[in-house]
């Protein structure tokens, strides 16, 4: 089976999307004969035409990106617009998405996922599904006990996709937890993210006391 994985993170190779992609592809390649090409959207930002042609020539495409204000990053939208001229062609890849966000709940990702599914139908591709995962900011600094379970689920998803050409709904459901946070979890998770992830970086940069600055105040 052939797969084109487009890592559409604005951060390119050094991205949370890239970490998740790595686990998925590792699983995908376990089936002998499978081949995966990885393209980074940022490298194509000045000319999307070549990547659009490569998309069109593929059997399966997964586009991975982070949530940017409740939708796809502007650069991903630019690529989607670049695919518009291909609309209505006969030979099209099957298309899926891998979307992650920093918010701990998967609920934030459901809306852009609906758009991605509609986009897939509009352009005329068969829809593979959307792999959604919250809590993904700073994956490289998150402790292993938090990440190992779902990294292995991304691997299993890749293995399964490599064998069947389908994105397994059962694994998707497991990955999507928590869809929402209980009040108890929220009280635990929010300070963990605020202090552990954000304040730590601000402190390192010496700006913690200015974190609520309003430099654009009219």
């Amino acid at each position: 089976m052939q797969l084109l994985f487009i890592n559409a993170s604005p951060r390119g190779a050094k991205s949370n999307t890239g970490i998740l992609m790595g686990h998925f592809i590792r699983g995908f390649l376990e089936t002998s004969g499978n081949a995966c090409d990885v393209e980074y959207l940022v490298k194509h930002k000045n000319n999307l035409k070549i990547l659009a042609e490569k998309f069109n020539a593929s059997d399966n495409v997964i586009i991975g990106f982070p949530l940017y204000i409740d939708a796809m990053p502007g650069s991903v939208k630019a690529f989607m617009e670049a695919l518009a001229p291909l609309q209505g062609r006969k030979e099209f890849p099957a298309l899926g998405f891998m979307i992650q966000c920093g918010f701990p709940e998967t609920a934030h990702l459901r809306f852009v996922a609906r758009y991605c599914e509609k986009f897939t139908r509009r352009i005329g591709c068969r829809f593979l599904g959307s792999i959604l995962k919250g809590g993904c900011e700073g994956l490289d600094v998150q402790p292993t006990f938090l990440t190992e379970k779902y990294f292995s689920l991304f691997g299993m998803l890749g293995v399964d996709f490599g064998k069947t050409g389908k994105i397994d709904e059962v694994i998707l459901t497991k990955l999507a937890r928590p869809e929402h946070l209980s009040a108890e979890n929220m009280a635990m998770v929010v300070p963990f993210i605020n202090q552990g992830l954000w304040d730590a970086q601000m402190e390192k940069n010496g700006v913690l006391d200015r974190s609520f600055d309003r430099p654009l105040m009219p």
Partner: protein
Amino acid sequence: MKILILNGNPPGGKGQIDSYIDRLVEKMKSAGHDVTAITLRDHKISPCIGCFQCWVKTPGICSIDDDARDITRQFIAAQYVILASPLMMGFPSFLLKNAMDRNICIVHPHLEEVDGEVHHKKRYDRYPVISLLLEKEADTDEEDIDILKDIFRRQAVNMWSSVGFIHFTESPVEEIIHAITVH
């Protein structure tokens, strides 16, 4: 009222939206509003690179020094913002999305609970009401509009804004003037 219109029509200025905005600006001015319309295609707005420096290094200021900085300044100064774009593959243009992505510096990285979900904390005391002015594509259907409305409402929550109107260029300019006046 201080109104900002961000026009995301792509280069070449397709469709009816440019002339619609011209008529809208004229009517708004004669109704006594202080209105600025920015045609995004004439400005340099690089995409957000997700560096988060606007949160952790220079709080409230994007690391990219281009026209988006001034657009963000005008965004936060406005009482009412109209996001205008033709629909392209069922969504506003990438020009408009890039401009909106660059606005994350107007909120704070810290999370807090808002109606049972986690969202970012405020940076400023007040935020503009945001509205959508869209031009339909030939194949725009109810499902597209539902998806757009849902995403847009969520964007408003994350930007501490309230949702004004969602209008299409097929409705008369007067309806928008009315929607703003009664808001």
